[in-house]
């Protein structure tokens, strides 16, 4: 294995094992995208095939059909304790990408649904596959990022992390966001996916000259022009690309500071 990927793998596995030791009821957030699927794969590596945490899917109901199929297939194969959460109340009231701004829609269907999911499960920690190179705001995150009862991210007063030593305490009613993939880049994920043979949804591969580089809700993702039909093609394309990965994501475009506003409210 190339040593840089081995380093990343080692660091992530160490965080995952630490989480199991330090928290009583952690959960993993799985969106079926390449990053959280890689995280799930690393959990299986860390615990020798076992996934010792419940796996939560925050379902907006607007995801691609292929993502639901992918979820159901691999959740069965890997024997996951899968828990799907939707903000049914907001959906019943008509919330959707055309009914409100992207910020309002993401907040209702993702952030608020996550809040409900964590309360329902009583989780003191939640593992997420976010990466620092995705966005300037995510680059400011800690590996262990405490959230208070109101779900807010106090980015002005983040706790110290020295070397690989971290404080695992959270306030009463709060929870820890754990980010074991912060140091990975998009290209690292693809090289690791190729090397390990990690399954990812077909949406990432070219179909009629288009592929998705980042996937989420169908209505808010645009494909990029591409002929990359295999993982190796994607590795080559991402290595050459000067375009941003999230260029096709609508919620980032509405407002330059959208990600920061979303994260301040507790968005993943």
């Amino acid at each position: 294995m190339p040593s840089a990927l081995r380093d990343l793998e080692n660091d992530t596995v160490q965080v995952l094992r630490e989480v199991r030791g330090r928290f009583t009821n952690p959960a993993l957030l799985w969106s079926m995208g390449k990053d959280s699927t890689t995280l799930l794969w690393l959990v299986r590596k860390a615990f020798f095939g076992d996934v010792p945490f419940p796996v939560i899917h925050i379902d907006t109901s607007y995801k691609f059909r292929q993502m639901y199929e992918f979820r159901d297939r691999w959740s069965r194969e890997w024997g996951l304790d899968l828990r799907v959460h939707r903000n049914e109340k907001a959906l019943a009231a008509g919330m959707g990408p055309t009914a409100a701004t992207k910020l309002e829609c993401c907040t209702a269907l993702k952030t608020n649904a996550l809040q409900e999911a964590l309360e329902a499960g009583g989780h003191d920690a939640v593992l997420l596959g976010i990466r620092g190179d995705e966005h300037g705001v995510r680059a400011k995150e800690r590996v262990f990022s405490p959230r208070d009862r109101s779900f807010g991210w106090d980015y002005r007063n983040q706790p110290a992390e020295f070397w690989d030593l971290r404080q695992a305490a959270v306030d009463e009613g709060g929870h820890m966001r754990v980010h074991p993939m912060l140091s990975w880049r998009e290209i690292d994920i693809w090289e690791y996916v190729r090397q390990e043979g990690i399954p990812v949804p077909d949406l990432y591969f070219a179909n009629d000259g288009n592929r998705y580089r980042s996937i989420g809700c169908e209505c808010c993702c645009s494909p990029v022009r591409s002929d990359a039909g295999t993982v190796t093609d994607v590795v080559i394309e991402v290595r050459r690309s000067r375009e941003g990965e999230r260029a096709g994501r609508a919620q980032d475009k509405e407002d330059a500071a959208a990600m920061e506003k979303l994260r301040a409210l507790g968005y993943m």
Partner: protein
Amino acid sequence: MTTPVLPEGGPTPAATARDADTLRVAFVGEVDHGKSTLLGRLLLDTGSVTTDRLEVPVADGGLAFLLDGLTEERADLFTLDTASAVLETGSRRYVLIDVPGHAELLVNMATGASRAEAAVIVVDCRERAAEQTRRHMRVLAMMGVTAVVCAITKMDLADWAEAEFHTAARQVAALADEIGLTLVAAVPVSAMTGDNVTAPGTRLPWYAGRPLLDTLADLTPWGDGGAPLRVEAQDVVEGRVLARVLSGELRTGDRLVAPGEDARTALRIERFGEPPQESAATGDNIGLVLSGPPCAPGTLLAPPDRRPLRGDRWRVRVLCTAEDGFAEGARCTLRRAGADLTGRIARVERHWDSARRAPAATDRGPVRFSEVAELTVLLDRPADGDDVRVCAPLGRFMLTDGSVRILGLGIVDEIAGEDRR
């Protein structure tokens, strides 16, 4: 041509703790000397960031925004918290780490710097190194970072004057000497124009050395050169110990001993989905099948002939990052690889401003924010450990008050006292 301030070439490469092709480099120095801008220039000119990340033109300060991602950082033009980005060149991967320069943001600076194996000292050619540069250099030295490069910035604002460069570079060289850092090179640059950052500058004809990026190749991680084998048991899954090699190399057949237990043999070294391995290196997280019963999480395993020291009286050095400091007598926890060690601060030996030299006199008064303190910690129970010179991953700790308050980061200088082995 003038005589270069510094000799060419760097320190002798040490055995590296991690693979030599990844190097983590922190950019440190005063507020507004241009750390974030220089980092942005390095990333932009090497094609390490996608075009959409340059949201504001270079002329309007957009380079710094590549790493200063928060609205507040952009509005007030300062770095609030640490961030990093990756740059690849040839066979090397650099993780470039930006840190804030403000004195009150020491927690964020130390968080970023503790991830680094080497550093670039960023100094404005007109203003020279001051309080924070000295502090950052001393913090780096305490953390074990020894190899540094100095970037003398904003040469465009000094009309590319050679004399300004040499004066600033000489000052940093003297400081590095005093603090015990190895200064590998000093390079005049302008992040705004890009001169001498990734390619030779046209406006610095008097400079005969290499551009900044090339000098980073001479920086080497300090490595674990000869550190003894130390293995941390993290968990147990179906009779297999989930373990991390903190230092040294583990081979199948090695004998390992835990405090108060009989020696076991490492029968198999495993990774899920991969063939069994003969050995594991520093940093590897593995599955370990041992003869005899598995050991409890947090157990520290070591070879019988090179065991850690054991004692309850630990001499440590701490950088205080708590705003209201701490004092002698306080309860404390040393969060360290493998386990949390509880005890109390039995004695403050002396303490001093981290930007200054250690004083000779004893001073048992309260330790304040951003000071370095030498302490004697009396643990509740004797524990195994190594001093930081023997085994860095085991000789480092985060000091807390036992609950949520983080008091600082520390290193172990000496382990003595009661040994009830």
